[in-house]
């Protein structure tokens, strides 16, 4: 009887995990489904853009009659208040959580749930978070306007520094002062759980996902740093907001030059990591490990599958007979923009597959809204533990001509701007894509 809420929690977890919302993720340890970790990706066109914000959500036995307890874990070790309603101490002020006196009709109800909570938190991460602070909703004096800009500017910097760069440096064991290797540590340890800190620190459910998303959004981070560094010189101080009190602030200085260097190191390390998989995979294959055999079999099955499929023309092979590195050559479909193209894509498979998921790189230069400048492909896999699903997803992403607009899938900024721009822009996009397809046969 006491466990009746478990059913609902597992159902909600499964629904979110199966869903296609790119901006939230949830995970829990098998030992305790009442204690959930959630990851919210900062919404596009806000100072939180493509930041990685982690939360702990604890469900009591009375859920869903009572709301769960939610805490922010991305707090720069308890020093940074990322939003008027997301405190440095981790508290999340939200009327549906009962942590803020809401208007009648804004409180918790048992029809609310994990997803509605996460979406509410995400909506706090807006383009102008200054007005989230009670009493500042309609503030429009020149003083307020100046503050609003200064607030956005420092959130942008800290989103990049804390939620992206330091998180990745932690995952990869990068010493932030000189880029050298240190033992990995977790920057965001739950403050309310110091007793079992070692245990908590080991639970990093979003590590692999964040690494892949980092590569997708790398160009956006670079662009943000480029633009912001022109406005905020290194060493200039963050402005203090009128509502920021002692111990619950966002203090610091702009250091965009430093952030750029660190961003580059992270990207390089991630590339090295995937190259390392290939080397490790080679060894595993020579020892005929069960994973190597399994991948070999999956490769053969996938080849058979696509041989039967006349609609898609592609060529699959193992690079150097290594089942951990697949090479796919996709032949552009006639009568489309891809006509005449030959696109070489590599699939890097981790020796920890499927707990670490494969990474994909498009090696042939292509001007495409879903392929970043350095060949990162934005694709969505149906069945993450089956390799043939990756091949399908890669083909679908490259051939996709009528995607739904989703700013979270726009990994090539210039191509997306043209693709979603005016009629004239779209023509330019198609022309550039066709040209890259034609050039690809010579690559």
């Amino acid at each position, binding site marked *: 009887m006491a466990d009746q809420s478990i059913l609902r929690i597992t159902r909600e977890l499964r629904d979110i995990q199966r869903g296609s919302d790119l901006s939230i993720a949830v995970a829990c340890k098998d030992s305790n489904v009442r204690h959930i970790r959630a990851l919210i990706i900062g919404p596009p066109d806000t100072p939180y853009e493509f930041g990685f914000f982690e939360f702990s959500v604890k469900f009591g036995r009375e859920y869903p*009659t009572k709301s769960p307890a939610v805490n922010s874990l991305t707090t720069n070790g308890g020093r940074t208040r990322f939003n008027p309603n997301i405190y440095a101490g981790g508290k999340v002020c939200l009327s549906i959580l009962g942590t803020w006196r809401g208007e009648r009709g804004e409180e918790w109800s048992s029809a609310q749930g994990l997803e509605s909570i996460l979406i509410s938190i995400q909506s706090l991460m807006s383009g102008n978070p200054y007005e989230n602070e009670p009493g500042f909703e309609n503030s429009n004096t020149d003083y307020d306007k100046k503050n609003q800009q200064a607030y956005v500017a420092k959130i942008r910097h800290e989103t990049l520094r804390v939620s992206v760069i330091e998180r990745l440096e932690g995952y990869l064991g990068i010493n932030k002062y000189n880029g050298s290797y240190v033992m990995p540590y977790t920057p965001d340890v739950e403050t309310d759980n110091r007793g079992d800190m070692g245990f908590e620190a080991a639970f990093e459910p979003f590590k692999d996902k964040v690494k892949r998303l980092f590569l997708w959004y790398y160009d956006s981070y670079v662009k943000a740093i480029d633009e912001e560094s022109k406005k905020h010189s290194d060493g200039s101080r963050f402005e203090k907001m009128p509502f920021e009190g002692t111990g619950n602030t966002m203090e610091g200085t702009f250091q965009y030059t430093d952030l750029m260097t660190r961003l580059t190191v992270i990207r390089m390390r991630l590339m090295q990591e995937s190259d390392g998989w290939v080397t490790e995979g080679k060894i595993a294959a020579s020892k005929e490990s069960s994973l190597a055999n399994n991948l070999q079999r999956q490769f053969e099955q996938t080849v058979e599958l696509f041989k039967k499929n006349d609609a898609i023309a592609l060529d699959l092979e193992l690079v150097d007979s290594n089942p951990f590195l697949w090479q796919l050559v996709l032949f552009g479909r006639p009568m489309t923009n891809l006509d005449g193209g030959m696109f070489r894509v590599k699939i890097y498979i981790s020796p920890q597959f499927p707990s670490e998921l494969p990474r994909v790189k498009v090696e042939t230069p292509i001007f495409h809204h879903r392929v970043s400048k350095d060949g990162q492909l934005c694709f969505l896999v149906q069945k993450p533990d089956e390799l043939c699903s990756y091949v399908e997803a890669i083909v679908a992403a490259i051939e996709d001509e009528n995607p739904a607009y989703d700013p979270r899938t726009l990994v090539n900024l210039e191509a997306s701007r043209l693709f979603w721009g005016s009629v004239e822009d779209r023509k330019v996009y198609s022309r550039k894509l066709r040209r890259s397809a034609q050039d690809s046969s010579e690559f």
Partner: protein
Amino acid sequence: MKVTIKRWNAVAAWRWDMPEDDVCGICRNPYDSTCSKCKYPGDQCPLLMGDCNHSFHMHCIYAWVQQEASQERCPMCRQGM
């Protein structure tokens, strides 16, 4: 041809008169299934519909309305039940 029926067993299925894939907003189980406290669906675990036309398993909505915080309002639309 003449057929004589010697014996017959009636088999029937029932379901609540609700949209097939709809779920209770509180326990998120299908209406045709039980609330999360009951074992068997049926008259022991009936459905209730409020004035606002939102339906729940009776046990689910009771648990909610008994909360002071609920102010006896529908969890979906917050109208009085």
